[in-house]
């Protein structure tokens, strides 16, 4: 009996003693813990990989960032004027979560004792935090700035008011400076990871945005106290100079140059760049995303171009100079030039961007395919976009594997030129270092520092001003042409305060008798049609387009495909003058662009959640 008691008491004692806290602690087995994570290079890489995949758009997304330079089957909310303060936009919980993820890195990265490794990835996170806030400022102007993880109970932080855009952009530039300092020159993955030049290139982009935005929107200067006590005046000029310096530092590094060779003798380097399957090692690619057919990592850019029938606008087409360097309006009858004539003797980039008569819609390495006519199944208005179009196998949904450059050297050159032009300090020498390189590659004469503003450009960009207005306009022309459909134009128009043309209604010029008659009526314009009838648009001797009003003619040339038989008044397409004129999309859509539209509305439910501390952008209340 005694023994039983012993056993019992010992068992009870053991049970009780082992009942300490650790006995009841069960840690997750098949998942990792933040306490031990962030310590190795592999782990830091895994963590920072997240940012690449959340904050960088997919190639497909760039096709959707539309402005007035091209349109698609469906117009964007900006173009349609349907944004409301009920939409969440980037002010969503998940998007702010990306910032949280970045700040979690800074909170935990001290787990990594290898300073060299840690520093490298700190650079990555500085870059992405800058990118995050740059985007937020683009959308919302003033935003609350957080450089640490906010706790659920930290009400002061959670419910804080917005920080001024100047302050935030200053922080963006600081992050980019730190990124440039900490990031390596290169990675073994090449341009598919961000390096220090990428950070400087983004700095030139962001600073140019802020500098021009402040200039054209008359944003008041702000004072910023640096860590060392000195006070910096955040002005338009200050940002522009930052942009110029950043671009200069990339240029002077000598690491990058324009891609001038072509993988195929049948087309030029400019077009070739956008259908390369691998940008690694490409001299122009500073920061890019790789797609791979065997890994099934693909995008749908080409499918979208086809499916959404992305089409350039005539306004954009008129940006292209003639091949002799003269503006198009100098050419006799330019305003009513038809499709074929428009492409003759123009900046060669035009035929490398839009489907030209007698050209191939697809890249056909062996040039065996039939010469294509412009296909109204793939365009709304005759100007079919072929930039980024590779061969036919990429045309199905999500089958493209061409790489996409987030940042390419050409942009840096354009940022450089624009910053100095806006500062009024652009010289011929600077042009020769920047725009000339682009012109050389395209096969165009160099730009001579202009002094007289081009009247057509002045009409297109009425708000532009500056001591070097003529130069500003020519730099813009170069930028619009070179960077077409790469996701820039919408934001360019916003920072330049040229919002009107972004809507179908605003696409009409303010002047009653504009130089460009296509701008005398609202709507996005396409190719010029003298009247109903059959056309041989590519001058190959066969009719390939029918335009008719009312009932279809009883006999139609068999060479005209059914998709190229256009009925006026159908599918939102009209002719600008009724029975003739420019093919017009959405002439009837009468949306108004006002100053409020330069910023996105803060979601209403967020304003309400803050109980008055969070203010709405003007005009969106």
């Amino acid at each position, binding site marked *: 009996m005694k023994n039983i008691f012993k056993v*019992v008491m010992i068992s009870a004692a053991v049970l009780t003693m082992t009942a300490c806290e650790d006995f*009841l602690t069960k840690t997750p087995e098949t998942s990792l813990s933040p306490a031990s994570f962030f310590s190795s290079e592999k782990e830091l890489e*895994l963590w920072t990989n997240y940012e690449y995949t959340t904050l960088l758009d997919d190639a497909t997304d760039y096709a959707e960032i539309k402005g007035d330079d091209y349109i698609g089957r469906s117009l964007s909310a900006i173009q349609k004027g349907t944004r409301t303060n009920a939409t969440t936009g980037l002010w969503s919980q998940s998007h702010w979560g990306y910032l949280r993820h970045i700040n979690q890195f800074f909170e935990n990265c001290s787990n990594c004792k290898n300073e060299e490794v840690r520093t490298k990835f700190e650079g990555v996170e500085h870059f992405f935090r800058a990118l995050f806030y740059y985007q937020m400022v683009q959308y919302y102007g003033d935003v609350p700035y957080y450089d640490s993880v906010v706790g659920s109970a930290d009400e002061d932080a959670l419910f804080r008011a917005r920080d001024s855009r100047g302050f935030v952009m200053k922080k963006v530039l600081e992050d980019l400076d730190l990124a440039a300092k900490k990031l390596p020159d290169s990675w073994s993955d090449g341009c598919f*990871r961000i390096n220090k030049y990428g950070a400087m290139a983004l700095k030139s982009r962001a600073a140019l945005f802020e500098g021009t935005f402040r200039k054209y929107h008359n944003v008041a200067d702000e004072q910023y106290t640096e860590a060392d006590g000195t006070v910096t005046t955040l002005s338009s000029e200050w940002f522009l100079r930052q942009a110029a310096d950043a671009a200069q530092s990339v240029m002077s590094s000598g690491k990058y140059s324009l891609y001038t060779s072509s993988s195929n003798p049948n087309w030029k380097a400019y077009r070739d760049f956008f259908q390369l399957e691998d940008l690694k090692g490409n001299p122009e690619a500073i920061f890019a995303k790789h797609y791979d057919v065997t*890994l099934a990592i693909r995008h749908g850019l080409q499918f979208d171009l086809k499916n959404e029938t992305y089409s350039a606008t005539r306004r954009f087409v008129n940006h292209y100079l003639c091949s002799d360097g003269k503006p198009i309006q100098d050419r006799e009858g330019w305003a009513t030039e038809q499709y074929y004539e428009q492409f003759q003797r123009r900046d060669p980039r035009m035929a490398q961007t839009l489907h030209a008569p007698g050209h191939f819609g697809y890249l056909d390495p062996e040039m065996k395919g039939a010469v294509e006519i412009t296909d109204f199944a793939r365009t709304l208005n005759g100007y079919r976009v072929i930039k980024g179009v590779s061969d036919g196998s990429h045309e199905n949904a999500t089958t493209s594997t061409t790489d996409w450059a987030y940042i390419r050297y050409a942009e840096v050159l354009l940022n450089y030129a624009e910053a100095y032009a806006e500062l009024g300090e652009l010289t011929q020498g600077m042009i020769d270092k920047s725009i000339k390189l682009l012109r050389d590659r395209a096969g165009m004469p160099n730009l001579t520092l202009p002094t007289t503003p081009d009247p057509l450009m002045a009409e297109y960009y009425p708000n532009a001003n500056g001591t070097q207005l003529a130069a500003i306009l020519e730099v813009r022309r170069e930028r619009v042409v070179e960077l077409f459909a790469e996701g820039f134009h919408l934001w360019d128009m916003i920072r330049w305060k040229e919002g009107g043309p972004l809507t179908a209604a605003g696409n009409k010029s303010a002047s009653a008798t504009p130089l460009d008659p296509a701008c005398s009526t609202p709507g996005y314009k396409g190719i010029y049609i003298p009247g109903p009838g059959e056309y041989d648009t590519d001058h190959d001797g066969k009719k390939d387009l029918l335009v008719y009003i009312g009932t279809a003619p009883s006999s139609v040339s068999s060479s005209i495909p059914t998709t190229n038989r256009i009925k006026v008044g159908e599918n939102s397409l009209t002719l600008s003058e009724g029975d003739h004129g420019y093919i017009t999309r959405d002439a009837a859509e009468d949306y108004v662009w006002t100053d409020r539209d330069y910023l996105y509305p803060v979601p209403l439910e967020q304003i309400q959640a803050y109980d008055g501390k969070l203010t709405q952008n003007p005009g969106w209340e």
Partner: protein
Amino acid sequence: MLTQKSFFKPLLLTFAALMLCIGANAQVNLSLKNVKVSDAITALNRAYGYSVSVNSDDVDLNKVISVNASRASISDVLDQIFAGQQVSYFIDGKSISVSKVEPKAKPAQLTGVVVDENGEPLMGAGILVKGTGTGFISGPDGSFALRDVIFPATLVVSFIGYSDQEITVNGNEGHIKVVFKDSMNLLDEVVVVGYGTQKRVNVTGAVSVIDGTTLSQRPVTNTAMAIQGADPSIIITTGNGSIESSEYSMSVRGKVSLNSGSPLVLVDGVEGSLTLVNPNDIESISVLKDASACAIYGAKASAGVILVNTKSGVGEEGKASINYNGRYSISSNTTSTNFMTTAYDYIMLTNSFNQVFQGNDAWTYTEEQIQMMYDRRNDVTENPERPWVIPDTTNTYTYLYLGNFDWYGWLFKRTRPETEHNVSIKGGTKKMNYYVSGRYLYREGLFNQGAADNVNNFSFRAKLNAEITPWLHYSNNLAYERSNYQYGGFWEQDGQAGLVEQGILWNTTQNVGPFYVPYNPDGTVNIQPGFMYGATSPLFSGRGGVWTNDGNKNARIKNALTLTNRLTFSIAKGLKFVADYTYRRNDNVNTYRSLPTPNCYDNANKRMYVGNGLTGGYFSNGSVNDFYREVRYYQDGHVANGYFAYDGTFGKHNVAATLGANFDDYRSSNVTVHQKGSLSDALAYLNLASATEISTLNESNSAYRTLGFFGRLNYNYAEKYLFEVSGRYDGTSRFPKNHRWGFFPSVSAGWRISEEPFWAPISGVWNKAKLRLSYGTLGNQQVSNYYYFDTISLDKLTYTFNGTDAAQRATMSSPVSSSLTWETVISYNVGLDLGFFKDRLNIVADAYIRDTKDMLTKAMTLPNVYGVSAPKENAADLRTKGYEITVSWHDAKKVGGKPLHYGISASLGDNITKITKFNNPTNLLTDNYVGKTLGEIWGYHVIGLFESDEAAAQWAEQYDLSVVNKAELACKAPYNMVMAGDMQFENLDGDTHMKDGKIAINTGSNTLDDPGDRRVIGNSLPRYRYSFKGDLAWNGIDFSVFFQGVGKCDWYPDANCVYFWGPYSYRRPTFIPTSLQDNCWTEDNPSGYFPRQRAQLVKNSVVNDRYLQSAAYLRLKNLTLGYSIPFKTKAIQKCRLYFSGENLFYLSPMKKYCDTVDPEVATTSAYGDCLYPYAKTITFGVDITF
């Protein structure tokens, strides 16, 4: 005291040891020759002082004997004195008493009669000589005759509906009369409670007991189904009628938390599942309902406890008893499966619906083709003169389909057999007993086509109980269950829906019409008929031909093993220590094999797909791919208990105490492998993967531990004043260190008023009255195992940095409140136990309030800048109020000269749960809010259907109907307006909301203060759960009937519920209830229930009271009729043949417009209620005991 010589010595030794008796050891010297017995007694008295008294006249004192004893014991001397006489003697010191003993009983016949309390003979009573195989069933006159009985013997008399009685017979009683007393003697009934048992009379908490015999008499395949309706506090929702029986949800007294919280199920003290217990093994089930009963289980018991106790062996010498219980059953649907099967009627109806909706036909047939259907409309089977599939003369397609095909009958089995064989053996000796049982169960599933659809269940239980020493008992309990469920279909649906049947069943409800047949005349599988399409139909495009292809095979194999070893130490009188250890292991393997369909013909594109799925050329669209997937899951559990139990009586003070500890440790592991493409069609193994096509490989492990210290103290005075205090201190690995431990106490008291002296005058009529009161708190720890941890997870991306492999990325889990801790459940219970007319009438009633505090819900809404969802906090409360009452009556009457025993009982239970705290400051109706009753349904009031187009137009002038009549307005012109036969919704909030100059009928701000024109129109939770039971036994026949129902429950049919809505739900429904057409409003039928015929109307319409269905029901849950054959052989102790019907019929107001959905299933579905049908089961069975 009667002893026999042969037993004398050991008894004497025992007495000597205990009583220090000297007599036995005294040495006697006595020598006498040829003297009388009486003289010898005198001599013994003189020599040694023994006084011998002879108690019987039958002892011959004059018999001449001789005694020759030297240093002999007194008993030896007595043996010599009484040599040749059958006597026994009792020696107490120096005094000896001698009695005559009857001649030693030879095996003899015993006859008798069994009668009831009123003296009426009972037929069919079982009489068994305990410890032997000798038995008899009483005849019509109640008589029985047992041969070869060795006396004294104990008879066990049993009778259906009564508990067994034991009678001792000495053999000199002659023709015996066994009076069968009414057995409901609640005074001695023992109730299993946490870590012990209590006498029913002493229970102070709310505990109800379900007797195992009532379970095993019903042909239910799992225990979960069996306890439905058995106690009014229990709500069992079987997710569907699936044959696998794996999915059920149960609540005791309603929902305990907005989070999970289901009752703790303990099988013989170890956590288990009701579906894994063989119902035949169950001795009893205790339902612990209030905090005082549950407190000893602490943090797991907040939602109530179900204690399942299995049968044990018998502890007497003797032969084992073997029981065989076998049955054959046929299941069918409880609901109607009458759907339209005539193509002509079907086409006319669906086309007419769609003309209004889209302005065209749902199916593009020409008039001639429809005429051909008309010609065939009476052909239930195909008439060779008018084939159902003919060449398409318009040459648009190859085939034209004109059939009257019964798709329901083709896809599904209308009747489904099942068989069960159950064998149990029990027996033992005084020191050891055993119970062994085995069951085989086979059930067939619903699906008629494709791979086999059935489940094979094997279960086995072995229990052993042994006395090692008088102070140490050992017992073990081994249970093993295997379930092998095989079914067809394809994994994607299973993966999406969680249960294969739901997704696939729902898919079958669309896009097939009776005109169509599964196979073309050339034997090819029909796909893409051309004039119709349906991407999600299981037969047609999308998942082409899945039911024609038995290559789609899946299985779920479950193995569950539980092994308990227990030692019981008897330490001192009334005090014991129990220690046990249980190992539990569940091993599950789920396999999924999919193959595309070979031999398909695409009628639309005139294209043939041949091949066998490997060689290409087969039809495969989207989701049915060639793959094999395997999921392996196991769970290891270790449970240890150690506790002291004390039971003592001091005069009128009765004390019982329990004190101990419980330790649980569980770990589970799950590995999933998914392999694309296989080298074999027939075999499914991972190593048959083609090339490197392992596309998914995932492992996840999870573990938790709990440790609890519990105690209970019971005290009562004379079993009149009862008190109980119990509590548990519980710790769990699921909460962070500082919030890990919780203490959950309870107190309860009872007063048996009827035991008071002042009650005596009325106790003849009202014999029992007891008041019970309890209060206690419990915890709810039902969060996931690692909920409070921040974890880093990795996922693979469609992003590459190097072009050689896809990148991975790391993220951190959403933050969790650092103060995360238990939800607390506080409950108050008051109960009454009443008995009248010597317990003929019994009433048990309980009323309770249960408060759930600190429920883990979202806290305040944080701004988006926080970046993740706000962590959940212990921030909401709810309160449940309810009651249960059970009234029963049982008695016996004489009917037709034979005794009739009968009993009836009725029970009723109800509860209602309201939210008392919730963070929803604006009281948005899309969320919970303070004051919300769980289950409430918000909707509009429909005044009626517009009588005329003019009335509708007038109404539309006045009111903005864009919300409530959205679906009507979206129809194709000229039907894009409200018209005669459309629903007219009432405007309840005046002109509060205006739109375009009209009064808007809408949801207002969708808040409690401004709900617009919506009101609470019903509640989807079952109220007033009731049941009626009746049983009677007469002349060997037993009969029982069990009705069960719900008094109030509302169901608003989901927009996907084709079984209810037909074409109002989808424009091309497979199944249209035949009754629907007659109930539609038409100009000729202006009183129709359903509105104007508009296809897909309900996809865009609003919840309203017109089509709210009352899912209240009364169901004949079970009816059993049995007959016990009175065998006159000792080999068979009992042989009962029975018929039983489960869910035989139901009554429900719902039936008026919908007899295709069972009311019990209707309210539980996430799949538009197109679920695995609820089964009606007819059973024939035999129950034999050897």
